[in-house]
């Protein structure tokens, strides 16, 4: 009898566990965002200058090569994909528009955001998670140092600034990659590609991508810091936290992208 009852309870207990887990994560994310916002208020400014510079170096400069490689390849892929249609309709002048519009507006920020979340977000979660499981965060609390102000704020600021700058660089290199591909593989002159980009791509398209990149940086920073600080259970826990962090960042990137597209058009 007891076994039957517990078997019947099983789906409900799983459902309840899931609901509790999600409520926990949502609440934690909102609380962390709230604490970050409080720390951003001008009268609470208590930034550690050198630490911010170090974070910016680690976040920005060290992910520079990977972003450049991704961007060049993404530009090339976009040109190849639009090249098939361009040749079908013999509209070589539109190649730069097709590739440039896609890169600047959607594909560039999304793919650079995903690489950024993989490189920087995962790294950040792993770092904070290791600190958590080795009790370093509790040690900070014992010394009356707020972990959010001391650990999260520099990373948060560095990630937002660097995500923006990396998308600027990435857009530029992606266009260069696209221009070279159009010359080499499609036989469309680079100058024609350039003319097409300059003529048809609007400043709005660039801004659209850059605004999104700032939002992606914000989301990745909050999510990766939250999952890092919520790590539990040794080396296995660090791995699980990194997994949760990159999955959450990916969902956030697509959701934000959708709502920005929906809100601006």
């Amino acid at each position, binding site marked *: 009898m007891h076994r039957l009852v517990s078997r019947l309870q099983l789906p409900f207990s799983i459902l309840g566990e899931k609901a509790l887990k999600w409520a926990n994560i949502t609440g934690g994310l909102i609380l962390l965002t709230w604490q970050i916002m409080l720390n951003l208020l001008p009268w609470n400014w208590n930034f550690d200058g050198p630490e911010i510079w170090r974070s910016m170096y680690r976040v920005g400069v060290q992910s520079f*090569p*990977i972003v450049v*490689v*991704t961007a060049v*390849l*993404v530009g*090339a*892929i976009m040109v*190849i*994909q639009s*090249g*098939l*249609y361009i040749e079908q309709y013999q509209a070589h002048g539109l190649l730069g528009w097709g590739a440039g*519009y896609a890169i600047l*507006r*959607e594909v560039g920020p999304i*793919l650079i955001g*995903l*690489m950024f*979340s*993989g*490189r920087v977000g*995962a*790294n950040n*979660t*792993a*770092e904070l*998670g*290791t600190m958590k*499981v*080795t009790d370093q965060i509790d040690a900070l609390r014992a010394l009356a140092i707020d972990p959010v102000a001391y650990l999260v704020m520099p990373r948060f600021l560095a990630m937002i600034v660097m995500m923006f700058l990396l998308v600027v660089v990435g857009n530029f290199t992606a266009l260069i990659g696209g221009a070279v591909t159009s010359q080499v*593989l499609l036989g469309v002159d680079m100058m024609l590609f350039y003319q097409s980009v300059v003529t048809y791509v609007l400043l709005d398209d660039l801004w659209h991508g850059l605004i999104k990149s700032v939002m992606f940086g914000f989301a990745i920073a909050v999510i990766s810091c939250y999952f890092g600080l919520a790590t539990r259970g*040794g*080396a*296995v*826990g*660090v*791995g*699980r936290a*990194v*997994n949760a962090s*990159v*999955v959450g*960042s*990916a*969902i956030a990137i*697509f*959701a934000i*992208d*959708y709502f920005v*597209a*929906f809100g601006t*058009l």
Partner: protein
Amino acid sequence: MDSGSTKTEDPRREPTTFREFLASLGRPFVEIGDTVRGIFAVFGLTLYYMVRGRTRWKAIFEQLHEVGNRSVIFIAVTLGFLGMILIYQSGYQAQQITGDLQMLGGLFLQLLLREFAPTITAMMLATRVATGMAAQIGSMVVTEQVDALEMSAAQPIDYLVVPRFIATTIMTVVLSIFAVLVAYTAGAITAQLSFGLNVRTFVDMSFIGWFDVWMGLTKAVAYGMAIPIIACHAGLNVFGGSAGVGRATTAAVVNASLAVVILDFIISGAGYVILHLVS
């Protein structure tokens, strides 16, 4: 040059600024070379044990569940958003320029098959599955379970990597097809709600041909083979406790995503060239 002390006293080996500059120039290349060689070594051993080793059906089914079933919701959410975004942006442009949305659905399906469904699915699997694998195998290495496996004459690659390799290859293809369905449905709903485009007009198979299907399947298989190998390579090379596991998961997701982008470039370029040679 026969003992350690003479080496350090040798003036030619003193680390000057120029030497450090050269070292910092060369180090990334050496590291990249080591990683690539390691990945191909794991790949070769995996293929060897796939042919020679025993087939562990139970482990394969466990991994199929872990990779496939548990990613379904994640893939559905992200690809659903992607379908809505792409239709939103391209539909808006089409409305502005030509005012004709007839071809939107057909071209969307073609682009989805050729490019977005397999690539974005693989990027998502590279984040979810690759970090999971690297973390799992990494913690096994840290807690010396992999050494224990070797002690009991079970090859870690045979025992751990082969089931993951088979399962991820199958599931990437399956999830890519699922991704096409999800993104297309989300796109159809968006087209109906935002542009008033009838679903009957939107569902248009006339553009796609065998080339698109083969392109998508080739990409899915290639990504599905690359992701588990890279993740397991990162996991097996963990050293140094929980910090090492964190490093390995980061390496896994970065390398797997980069591999997806590089393979995408290679296969798209090859497909373009082949299409030109045929026609």
